[in-house]
């Protein structure tokens, strides 16, 4: 396949970036998208040019590190996968592919296609945990009865890998799906109920401080989430937040 690439290049955080055109010949359908970029980078290095920086780690769809906006969609055209799980068979010979970093004020570009997603880390640090004694006297979680329905919903929320596709897809760059998943995975379980009110207030406060946009319920985040995190989590977070705030 011959593929025409339009890739965002930006020297560093303070430089102004631009789209640069590249042409790739001999692209195989079985190549992963990141392998295709690896080969492009090998070509660039061979020519003495600066390779394109992009985030990647596990390449198994688990870590949430890869973060590319491909042809206007986070993680590309296929559903429920990350970029590293996207293969070139999803494209056709002669296609032009536009590759950009995830765009949000709270996700500043560091270089080329790499963005700083520490805003998510700070939201997590604000309350995305439970305070337990881990000295060995903790009750085994399997001994606590939990409704199957709640366990399933908590598991759905806990599947969030924090990749940021929800923010990238949202027209408002809202982080509500991410934050609500992290709130929900604890709010649905007895271990998390103890600090539920404090958690949701602190995490929402941090989310707002980071400069993410407001949710307008377009549902784009749910569609583009590689882990299929449900919009129900956002409603749950709203509920938890209102309840916690009113009770004071």
């Amino acid at each position, binding site marked *: 396949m011959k593929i025409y690439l*339009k890739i*965002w290049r930006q020297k560093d955080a303070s430089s102004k970036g631009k*789209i640069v055109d590249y042409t790739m010949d001999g692209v195989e359908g079985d190549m992963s998208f990141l392998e295709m970029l690896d080969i492009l980078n090998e070509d660039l290095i061979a020519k003495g040019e600066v390779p394109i920086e992009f985030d990647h780690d596990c390449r198994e769809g688990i870590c949430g590190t890869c973060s590319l*906006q491909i*042809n*206007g*969609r986070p993680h590309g*055209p296929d559903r429920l996968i990350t970029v590293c799980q996207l293969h070139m068979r999803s494209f056709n010979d002669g296609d032009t592919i*536009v590759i*950009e970093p995830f*765009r*949000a*004020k*709270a996700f500043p570009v560091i270089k080329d296609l790499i963005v700083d997603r520490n805003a998510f880390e700070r939201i997590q640090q604000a309350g995305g945990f439970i305070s337990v004694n881990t000295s060995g006297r903790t009750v085994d979680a399997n001994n606590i009865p939990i409704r199957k329905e709640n366990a399933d919903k908590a598991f759905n929320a806990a599947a969030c890998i924090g990749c940021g596709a929800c923010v990238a*897809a949202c*027209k*408002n*760059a*809202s982080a*509500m799906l991410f934050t609500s998943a992290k709130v929900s995975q604890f709010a649905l379980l007895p271990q998390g109920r103890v600090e539920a009110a404090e958690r949701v*207030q602190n995490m*929402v*406060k941090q*989310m*707002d401080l980071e*400069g*993410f*946009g*407001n*949710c*307008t*319920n*377009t*549902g*784009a985040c749910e*569609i*583009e989430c590689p882990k299929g995190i449900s*919009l*129900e989590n*956002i*409603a*749950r*977070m*709203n*509920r*938890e*937040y*209102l309840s916690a*705030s*009113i009770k*004071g």
Partner: protein
Amino acid sequence: MSSLIKSSIARKVVMALSGLFLVLFLALHVTINFTSVISPDTFNQWSHFMGYNGLVQYIMQPVLILGVIVHFVMGIILEYQNTRARSIKYTKYKGAANSPWVSRNMIITGLVVLAFLGLHFYDFWIHEMTYKYLEAKPEDPTRYYIETVEKFAPIWRTVIYIVSFGLLSLHLWHGFASSFQSMGLNNKYTPSIKSFAKIYAVIVPLVFVFIAIYHHLNPITH
């Protein structure tokens, strides 16, 4: 409570509550308007009641105006913040692949409805205020039907009403059901709420359009 007022969730709840209040008002409005098609006398009675009842005039009317202002101002604030949240736009953004057009363009449909409200207020509210307070004319319980029908005589006004109600329908299509999600209600009843909201979003504006066309096609002959 102080953190609640500043939060993005609270802003969305204010948007949702003011929106639901306006949805409720629309149901009342369309019901009274529809009587103008069935019985001019009933329409006159209701209009006179709404125009001179103290509770309606001094409680309901200010609350309604406040509801419109809150919904509009909060919508502008949210839009401003949302635009700032992505200062550098994508070169290519395929919003249609993951969300309906109406959900992404509530500000457009909302601003058109707001502009229409300007005309609507000029047509009826300003006229009423002038009649009652500036000109201090006596009560006339028979005037409302004639005044309403005469408003729809020009084709341009009827067309503006039809287009505006089309946009209102799109606004309701997303906004009505969305307000429940904003308030934290997403459960087994959500599919039913969404269906009801969509039926409402079509039927109510359609009845308003029908009334406008009906009066345009059936002018009062003196």
